[in-house]
Structures are given as structure tokens and as C-alpha cells.
């Protein structure tokens, strides 16, 4: 009876997972959006989340691969958003996002070929939070089956769901005036970076932490016009960064997909062995406990079954330890895959970082010069304006 209960527990403890290869389609807003209401989105390079990963995934995570994934995933997310046509310019931006119409930040909580979990935070230039939640996607082995020739990323559904939620928020919560207001705030935020002495007073933060337009500059404000010209240059700089990210993603795609396909199998084996080890351990212990109790019975049949339970339970426990050892072998196999991928993409990651830093440094140096020129221009304009009443009052 106890053995029957133990084996019944075996069936109850087993878990079953349903996986699907159905791709969540991305939504497209076909309604006409005037240009002054078309929001741009800046996608930050994702946070690697190495401090937040589940403890049972530490052995399956490689820091260099994760660092590469932060840029890889951010780029794919930007591509997904851009491809919908629902937004203006969507770019990966490693810098300050405060002057962006909409800013998206992500943290990779888990990424092991089978499962990807990303915590997403989306907010607009006013500081209003659109989305702050985790997205999880579990894929099947068919996502990596080369015979299916799937061109999209294995986790494209994840990116599509995020894109859909961002669109839904905009459609459900923001009217035309609010869209225009977001763009205005973003524009003035950018202007503040180059002429804070002028544009600081145009924005204020209310009690709820939302940035509001306090007053507007004139439509023909010459200083703002110059800053708009600089902002066009900033767009060009960000576009150049996209070239870097695009090249990096294309270089990384092949080995990274291969790694995910192989690591998927290893992760599956690991999870399966871990589950079997746990199950057998529980089952074995239950059988032993039941057997020990039954050996005290006066019924010969029960006593005989009890010894069977003791023997079977001991065997299952031994097998549980064997399964754990096998799982550890999977970890080592996975480590070999991870180290191989790290060796392949590490130079590319380093090169990307160096180029981004170098270009950004050059751009920031130029921006600093522009700030000084703008300050001098403003001083000249103020001096000119002050001189006009003085000239008007000058004796004839």
C-alpha cells in the first residue's frame, strides 16, 4: 500500500509543460498620425541583470554572453518597434534618454535559450510611466530547427508583445494634445542641455513628478532654432551608432543562434535530470519511510512488500544522486558552449564598446563647444537687445 502511494506520488509530482511555436503578431496602427504627434522612441542598451537572475540559473549564465545580449536584444526590440510604423524614429541609445519622446529600458532577468525574461520600463519625456512589468517567453526546440527556416529571432514573440503593449498604452491613454505635449517637453529637455541658462525656466516638475511646460519660447526663437539644428546632428550621431549595433548584431547572430540551439538542448537535459533527481529522491525517501514502518507489521505479505519498498527506495535515492551527477555534466557541457561563444564574440563586443565610447567622446567634445558658442550667442543677443533701448534714448 505504501509502495502504491509512493508510485502514485510519482505521477502527481511530474510536471508537464505546453510549449508552442505560435508567433504573437505585432499590431500596427493604420490611423493617420500627424508628424507633430509621431513619437520617437529611444531604447536603452538593456541591463544585464546579472545580480537578479534566478539562483537556479547561475550555472547556466555566462556574463560575457549576457553583456552581448544586452545590445543584441535592445537592437532587436528597436527593430521591432521601427518595423511597425507606429512611431517616429526608434533607435538604440546608450546615453541619457531624458530628451527622448519615449524611453524604453529593459533588464534581462533570464536568457538561456529556452526561456527569456525581460523586465521592461517605458516612460515618456514628461516622466509618466507607461509600462513597468516583466515579460517571459518560453520557446520550443522547433524555434531553432533549421529545417523550418524561421527568419525571425526565437524570441520575436516577446518583442512583439512588448511592442503591442506600448502601442496599446499610447492609443488608450494619450490624445493628440498629450502627444504634442510630450514632443514639446522632449524638445525643451534637449534645449536645456545646450542652453540651461535659458531653457531651465521653461519646464517645471509638479508634485507628482511629472514634467510640465511652464512657458513656451517664441516660434521664431533663434536660439531654439540653432538647437534644433544641433538636434538634427544628434540624430545623425545616433544613426551612426545604429550602424555599429547593426553590424554587431549581424556578426553575433550566427554563433549566438547556434549557441542558443545547443544550449537549449543542454538546458532541457539539465532541467529534466534535475526534475528526475528530485522526483526519485522524494519517491525513494517515501518508499524507505513506508518500508521501515511496514516491517513492523505482523502480516507476512505486508512485511515482504516493506522490504521491497526499502530496497526500491534505496535504489531510487542512489539513482537520484546519479541524476544530479549527470545534470552537473550538462552544466559542464553548457559551460563549454558558453566559453566557446564568449571567445568568439568577446572581441566584437569590446570593439563595439570602444567605437561607441570613442564616437560618443568626440560628439560630447563637440557638444561642449557648441554649448559655449550658444552661450556667447545668447550673450550677444542679449547685449544687442539691451543696446537697442539705449540707442533709442541716445541724444540726436
Amino acid at each position, binding site marked *: 500500500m505504501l509502495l502504491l502511494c509512493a508510485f502514485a506520488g510519482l505521477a502527481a509530482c511530474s510536471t508537464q509543460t505546453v510549449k508552442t*511555436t505560435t508567433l504573437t503578431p505585432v499590431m500596427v*496602427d493604420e490611423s493617420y498620425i*500627424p508628424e507633430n504627434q509621431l513619437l520617437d522612441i529611444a531604447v536603452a542598451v538593456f541591463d544585464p541583470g546579472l545580480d537578479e537572475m534566478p539562483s537556479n540559473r547561475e550555472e547556466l549564465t555566462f556574463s560575457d554572453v549576457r553583456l552581448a545580449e544586452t545590445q543584441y536584444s535592445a537592437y532587436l526590440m528597436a527593430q521591432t518597434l521601427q518595423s511597425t*510604423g507606429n512611431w517616429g524614429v526608434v533607435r538604440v541609445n546608450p546615453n541619457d534618454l531624458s530628451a527622448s519622446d519615449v524611453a524604453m529600458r529593459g533588464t534581462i532577468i533570464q536568457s538561456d535559450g529556452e526561456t527569456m525574461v525581460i523586465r521592461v520600463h517605458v516612460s515618456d519625456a514628461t516622466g509618466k510611466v507607461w509600462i513597468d512589468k516583466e515579460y517571459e517567453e518560453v520557446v520550443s526546440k522547433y524555434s531553432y530547427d533549421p529545417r523550418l527556416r524561421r527568419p*525571425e529571432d526565437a524570441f520575436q514573440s516577446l518583442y512583439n508583445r512588448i511592442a503591442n503593449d506600448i502601442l496599446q498604452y499610447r492609443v488608450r491613454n494619450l490624445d493628440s494634445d498629450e502627444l504634442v505635449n510630450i514632443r514639446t517637453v522632449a524638445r525643451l529637455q534637449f534645449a536645456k542641455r545646450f542652453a540651461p541658462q535659458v531653457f531651465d525656466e521653461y519646464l517645471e516638475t509638479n508634485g507628482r513628478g511629472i514634467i510640465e511646460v511652464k512657458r513656451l*519660447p517664441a516660434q521664431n526663437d533663434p536660439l531654439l532654432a540653432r538647437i534644433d539644428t544641433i538636434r538634427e546632428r544628434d540624430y545623425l550621431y545616433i544613426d551612426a551608432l545604429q550602424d555599429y549595433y547593426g553590424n554587431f548584431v*549581424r556578426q553575433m547572430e550566427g554563433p549566438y543562434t547556434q549557441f542558443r540551439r545547443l544550449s537549449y538542448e543542454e538546458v532541457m537535459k539539465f532541467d529534466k535530470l534535475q526534475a528526475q533527481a528530485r522526483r526519485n529522491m522524494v519517491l525513494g525517501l517515501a518508499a524507505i519511510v513506508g518500508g521501515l514502518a511496514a516491517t513492523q507489521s505482523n502480516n507476512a505479505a505486508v512485511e515482504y512488500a516493506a522490504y521491497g519498498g526499502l530496497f526500491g527506495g534505496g535504489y531510487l535515492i542512489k539513482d537520484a544522486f546519479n541524476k544530479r551527477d549527470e545534470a552537473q555534466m550538462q552544466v559542464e557541457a553548457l559551460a563549454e558552449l558558453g566559453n566557446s561563444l564568449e571567445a568568439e564574440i568577446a572581441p566584437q563586443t569590446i570593439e563595439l564598446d570602444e567605437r561607441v565610447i570613442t564616437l560618443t567622446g568626440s560628439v560630447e567634445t563637440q557638444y561642449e563647444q557648441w554649448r559655449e558658442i550658444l552661450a556667447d550667442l545668447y550673450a550677444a543677443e542679449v547685449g544687442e537687445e539691451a543696446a537697442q533701448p539705449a540707442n533709442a534714448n541716445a541724444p540726436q
Partner: protein
Amino acid sequence: MNVSVNGTQIPNVLDTQSPGQPGTPGTNPAGSMPGSTGQQSGSTANGTDVAGTGSSNGSSGTQQGSAGTQGQSGTAGGEIAYGTGDDPFATLGRPGGGGMTAAQRKAVLDARLEESYAEFDGMIIGERERAQAEANEAGSAVMGTGAGGGGADGDEGGFDLPGSGSIIVASAPESSTGGGYMPDGTASREGDFSNAAQPTFDPPADIPSGDDDDVVARQLREAAMREPDPELRERLWDEYRNYTGIAQ
């Protein structure tokens, strides 16, 4: 650098051999901006004054001056070394100050700004050309620079969200890199596992029918027939054989 305003040559005050005193930054007068007097007081943030004028093309690729201009970001020929505190215009731009009026100073500064735009554009264009060359070498095209991206192809039906226009579910949106489009249709396929009843595995050939199994033998048989792991399943069958005496 020689600059003329309205045909009047501006003295080349930039050709200084020795750096002047550091310039004083422009003051921020309490009041409105130039050109905005009387236009912004009492104005509401209705967005009509400012919004919409900023282009979000993002990548119009405008090219000021010529690409690859020889202008250097540092000092050259006594030009102002912005960022180093060298500002021979320190006393200019103010009424009665120096030999340059505010308008002249503005013209010089604007010219300097335009020149730096050209330098910046040249730098960015150079970087993009380098990236494109690398991409071509790798056998793929550099991402395009158009804003807005592509729309969606096809429509699988539509649904309306409250307060929105028509929103359709895209079946195959375009991707500028060619690596992000979705397959046609929404073919669903079962994955590795299913919610169906737990499968059973036939016993080995040497295992009898089990009609005369007692409780323990029947439990061993059922456990072996449900065990998906082949190695463990075989061990359970061995245990069954040992218990029923088949192995003897």
C-alpha cells in the same frame, strides 16, 4: 578665418598669437528671450508655438559644407579654442565694448557654428561610411536611415481599441535588416510536451502478461510502464524480474 558682414570685412581678431583672457559666460537676464517679448506672456502650453517644428526625421543626412572638410576641432591659425577658456571676445558683444558690435559678434559665432557643423557632419559621415564598408565586407547592407520604417503587409483581420483608429494585427511587417519578419499565417505547432494522458511503454518481450501479479509486482509493472527514462525503466523491469523470479 576672415568673415565679412554686409560686405564689411570684420577684423580678423581671431589671429591672436597669445591667448586672451578667458571669456565670461553670457548672463541670464531676468526677462524674456530676445525676439519673444510680448509673445509669450500669458501663453498657454497648447503646443502650437513650439511643437511640431522640430523634425523627427532623425536621419535626414544633411551635409553642411563639404564632407571631409579640413577644419579641425582644435585651434588652427589662432582661432578660438572653445573649451579651453580662450575667448578674445570677452569684452565684445556689449555696448561700447571692443571693436565689434553684437551683431558682428553674432555673425562670427554663427559662422563658427556653421563651420563646426560641417566638421561634425564630416566626422559622422566618415564613421557611417566605415561602418557600411564593414557591413558590405561582411556581406550584408548597413541598416537604412529612413525614419518610420516599414508598415505591415497584409491584414489578418482587425479590431478596434477604445478611442483609437483602426488597428490591425500584422502578419508580416517589414524589417529594415531583413531578419525580423514573421512567417505568413499563424501556423501553430505542438511543442515538445502536451497535456495529453501520460504515455505508457510496452514491457519487454520476456515480461509475462502480469495477470497473476501480486500487489508489489503490479506496482513495479505500472511504474516501469509509465517511466519515460529508458534507463530507469529498464532498472524497474529488472526489479520486477527479480521480484517475480523471472530472472532466475
